[in-house]
């Protein structure tokens, strides 16, 4: 359409009302002339008018066709449909409100979950052409002795670490790749910025890291190869977040000093907002990456002088390698090339060892970065997606039912308009417009809900959630998703009722249908939708039961210690270059100082904090009647008063005390399970064990009640408590403190920070939290599932009830006359009640028939997330089924009682 044509149309649209009036005038002029002609032929006036109209045909149809010819019919119609839709909805505000609210919840929940799914599972790294990036891994078959196994973090034969020599050779000589870059995480760094010490994650990178990724800086310059030398200026790039938090986004931050594990660095750049490195927010269990350093500074950071590490030795594998392939290059050439370099640069001993196997390169897409976060979150996110998806589906089924019932109620009006010549397509569009208005309102409210929902989700996930997710707000992708699902929703709940409503047999519809029997044919689709709703409700109610019972099972497990009013934190003096003597002195001083904080009743120190997620285990040789027996054992290395602070009762002997810390006498306290495992029924007091034949004996001086160890478990763990000064492997470079307070935990936390600051201003407190928070974190995922699935289960069930109530009410209203006849003919009121309830029972039974197999299939998928309960648990299924049936019956009972009270005289007289 040309520009002129468009202008014409726009002008025509503006003068639309005039054009419409003109058309009316023109047509009525015609009818008048026609009538006049008939009158002249001698036909009486009113008959003349009638036959003029008859000769003309459908006026409305002609008008429509003329409008279509003018070419803006559809635009006009749209506006008209819109106004009509608003008017219709305003006539039933309760319906509109409920519909929009349920849509808002459904769309909002889906948007919130999609935001997470998108960020964690779908989105590419925010770098230049991310699809060109690959991650290199390698493995060496065959067998369990292969060299790659000894470097693999998990149990498989594939590993992702390379030696410095292999990486350097790849970077130097690769033809297939545009760039090869390496990095190595430094999980916990003590970073002092602006005189404030904090713990952050760090990444050590090759000099070409930022240029190969194609990431520009928000401020300053990226690291370059010149920074990546031993003698170069020690440069650091900080994250946008650290710039915000530690420097208040001060633009003069470039060149300022940063102390990392006490070593000085100069800030050269600030990474762009939203860039968190190639691992999408940190590595397993480590904080997010806030500082990026040249890899060579490994040699500047303090090391334990007793166990120095040669990071750049040919047999030390610690570098992870990624490459950017040349545009259009396949992985085949790169694989061959990197494979040859890998084989040629393996350490001497591996090349000589026949069992080491032949190393092979594996190439994975690196577009999304490394997979840590994705692996951790994949299953929970998929479950959440399924739950909210089901809830939205449910909302659609519910609304489709309501709209269908409304359309049936408007059948006469629709039939009339079809008879007047309105096109069916027009009518469908008009009915759909109501749906579009509903879902548009729902989507808008849903977006608001989603913004709140993301916060709720993240707070439920707790600290499990990561820095990458902290700045999560709905963006264009998410908005597009929301728009798409609302449109899809509209089609799902709007189209079928609209199509059905306009497929009317005109002559029968125009007649009164009240006498028509309430056959199931007419209500069939409504009842199928209701059955589906009941099925979905059953699936969600069963899941909610499973998750809630699973959480209750976890909560019911006795902890064995008192979690209330207990503040936890950690210190890592080893990273700041402390040696054993100074380190142990610090632990002792801090412990003494903590006890002097007002309100603090006890303070303890330990290598592991209960339910902290970490464990330490090995085996001991127990002396039993002259023979020595090997026993598996878990350890915790503790200071004096640790068990007393946690309020773990000593059942025999004594706990670890101050005198054990500096004494040469090796002692240990076992918990009851450990004592039983080591000494059976014999008294453990005075019993002896050692770690190996060469080590000195350790004497058991006490037995403590069992308490939870690394995570909440049902079966007690065998744990032996050992003074932290008596380890068999050198000193503990970081320790956790536990502080029991009688006053406010927030006040105590502030006092603790100040107290530690007195000793060392560059020593940050790690993982400061209360024990109750730690317990919540341990159960974060279970709490999330239980809360969300229960929420959506209840909403779904409520929607199903509303739907059922509506359907039964409608059916009773329509059958009033039939019921009246029945009662007049002598049917008892109970028989009427049975009649109505039987109909509901059939629908509910159909719902269960679909729902039970669906539940059995779907709950199997969540087995890994359940604790102490089987996904097929018959009790949960039966309980949920009974609840669903009972609630369905209650929802049906109210309108059914109305049917019982039908007065036959009035029912038959009406109309």
């Amino acid at each position, binding site marked *: 359409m040309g520009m002129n044509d468009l202008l014409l149309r726009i002008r025509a649209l503006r003068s639309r009302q005039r054009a419409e009036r003109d058309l009316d005038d023109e047509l009525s*002029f015609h009818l008048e002339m026609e009538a006049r002609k008939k009158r002249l032929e001698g036909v009486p006036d009113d008959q003349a008018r009638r036959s003029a109209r008859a000769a003309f*045909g459908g006026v409305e149809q002609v008008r429509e066709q003329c409008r*279509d*010819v003018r070419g803006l019919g559809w635009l006009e119609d749209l506006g008209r449909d819109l106004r009509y839709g608003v008017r219709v909805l305003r006539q039933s505000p309760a319906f509109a409100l409920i519909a929009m609210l349920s849509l808002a919840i459904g769309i909002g929940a889906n948007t919130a979950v999609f935001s997470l799914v998108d960020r964690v599972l779908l989105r590419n790294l925010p770098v230049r052409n991310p699809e060109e990036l690959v991650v290199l891994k390698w493995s060496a078959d065959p067998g369990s002795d292969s060299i790659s196994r000894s470097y693999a973090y998990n149990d498989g034969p594939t590993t992702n670490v390379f030696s410095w020599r292999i990486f350097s050779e790849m970077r130097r000589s690769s033809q297939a790749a545009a760039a090869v870059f390496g990095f190595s995480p430094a999980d916990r760094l003590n970073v002092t910025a602006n005189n404030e010490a904090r713990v952050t994650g760090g990444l050590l990178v090759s000099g070409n890291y930022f240029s190969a990724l194609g990431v520009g800086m928000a401020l300053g310059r990226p690291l370059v190869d010149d920074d990546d030398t031993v003698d170069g200026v020690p440069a650091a790039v900080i994250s946008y977040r650290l710039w915000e938090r530690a420097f208040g986004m001060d633009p003069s931050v470039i060149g300022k000093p940063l102390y990392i594990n006490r070593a000085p660095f100069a800030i050269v750049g600030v990474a762009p907002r939203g860039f968190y490195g190639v691992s999408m927010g940190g590595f397993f269990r480590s904080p997010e990456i806030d500082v990026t350093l040249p890899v060579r500074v490994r040699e500047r950071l303090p090391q334990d002088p007793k166990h120095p590490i040669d990071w750049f030795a040919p047999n030390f594998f610690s570098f992870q390698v990624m490459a950017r392939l040349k545009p259009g290059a396949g992985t085949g050439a790169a694989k061959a090339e990197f494979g040859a370099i890998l084989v040629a640069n393996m350490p001497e001993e591996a090349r000589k060892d026949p069992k080491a196997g032949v190393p092979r390169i594996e190439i994975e897409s690196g577009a999304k970065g490394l997979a840590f976060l994705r692996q951790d979150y994949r299953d929970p996110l998929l479950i959440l997606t399924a739950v909210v998806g089901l809830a939205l589906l449910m909302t659609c089924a519910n609304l489709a039912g309501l709209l269908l019932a409304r359309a049936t109620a408007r059948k006469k009006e629709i039939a009339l308009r079809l008879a007047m010549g309105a096109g069916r397509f027009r009518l469908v569009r008009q009915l759909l417009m109501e749906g579009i208005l509903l879902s548009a309102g729902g989507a808008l409210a849903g977006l608001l809900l989603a913004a709140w929902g993301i916060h709720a989700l993240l707070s439920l996930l707790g600290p499990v959630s990561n820095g990458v997710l902290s700045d999560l707000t709905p963006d264009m992708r998410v908005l597009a998703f929301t728009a798409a699902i609302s449109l899809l929703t509209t089609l799902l709940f709007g189209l079928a009722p609209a199509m059905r409503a306009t497929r009317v047999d005109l002559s029968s519809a125009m007649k009164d249908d009240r006498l028509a029997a309430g056959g199931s044919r007419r209500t069939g689709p409504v009842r199928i939708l209701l059955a589906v709703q009941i099925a979905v409700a059953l699936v969600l109610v069963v899941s909610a039961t499973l998750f809630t019972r699973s959480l209750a099972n976890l909560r019911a497990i006795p902890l064995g210690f008192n979690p209330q009013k207990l503040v936890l934190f950690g210190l890592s003096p080893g990273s700041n270059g402390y040696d054993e003597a100074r380190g142990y002195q610090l632990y002792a001083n801090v412990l003494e100082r903590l006890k002097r904080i007002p309100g603090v009743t006890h303070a303890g120190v330990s290598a592991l904090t209960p339910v902290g997620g970490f464990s330490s285990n090995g085996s001991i040789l127990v002396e039993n009647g002259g023979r020595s027996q090997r026993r598996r054992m878990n350890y915790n290395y503790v200071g004096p008063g640790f068990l007393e602070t946690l309020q773990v009762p000593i059942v025999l002997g004594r706990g670890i005390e101050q005198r054990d810390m500096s004494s040469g006498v090796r002692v240990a306290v076992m918990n009851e399970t450990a004592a039983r495992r080591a000494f059976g029924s014999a008294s453990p007091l005075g019993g002896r064990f050692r770690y190996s034949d060469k080590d000195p004996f350790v004497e058991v001086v006490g037995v403590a009640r069992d308490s939870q160890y690394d995570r909440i478990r049902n079966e007690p763990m065998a744990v032996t408590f050992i003074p932290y000064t008596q380890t068999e492997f050198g000193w503990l470079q970081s320790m956790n403190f536990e502080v029991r307070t009688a006053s406010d935990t927030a006040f105590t936390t502030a006092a603790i920070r100040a107290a530690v600051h007195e000793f060392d201003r560059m020593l940050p407190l790690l993982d400061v939290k209360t024990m109750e928070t730690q317990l919540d974190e341990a159960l974060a995922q279970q709490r999330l599932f239980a809360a969300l699935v229960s929420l959506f289960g209840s909403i779904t069930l409520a929607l199903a009830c509303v739907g059922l109530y509506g359907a039964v009410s409608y059916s009773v209203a329509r059958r009033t006359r039939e019921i009246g006849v029945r009662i007049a003919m002598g049917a008892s009121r109970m028989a009427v009640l049975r009649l109505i309830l039987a109909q509901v029972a059939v629908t509910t039974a159909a719902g269960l028939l679909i729902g039970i197999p669906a539940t059995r299939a779907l709950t199997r998928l969540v087995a890994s997330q359940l604790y102490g309960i089987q996904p097929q648990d018959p009790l949960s299924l039966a309980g949920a089924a009974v609840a669903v049936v009972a609630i369905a019956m209650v929802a049906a009972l109210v309108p059914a009682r109305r049917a019982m009270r039908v007065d036959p005289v009035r029912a038959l007289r009406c109309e």
Partner: protein
Amino acid sequence: MSRIDLLQGTLDLLILRTLQAGPQHGWAISERIQQISQDVLQVNQGSLYPALHRLEHQDWIKAEWGVSELGRRARFYSLTAAGRTQLEAERDSWARMTAAIGRVLEMA
């Protein structure tokens, strides 16, 4: 007398031809076609107005409000230059088609 419904597409031709005599309103156009064809051709009034609006949209006819013979406001249609050309073209092809159909009916 039996009436024949108009063949698809011939209505446009008849409207254009009718308007060659001068501006007319819709009712008069349908009356005239009926009259001249001696009541053989029956214009379906329902399709007359969409056809008029279509022709107007194609710029073959234009419309103006005027006063009818009985003093009432009416919409008068008249041929445009493009309409005249179009009429000649359609008339031509109609003549050729009827001639062709006639020949087939005679000879085949």
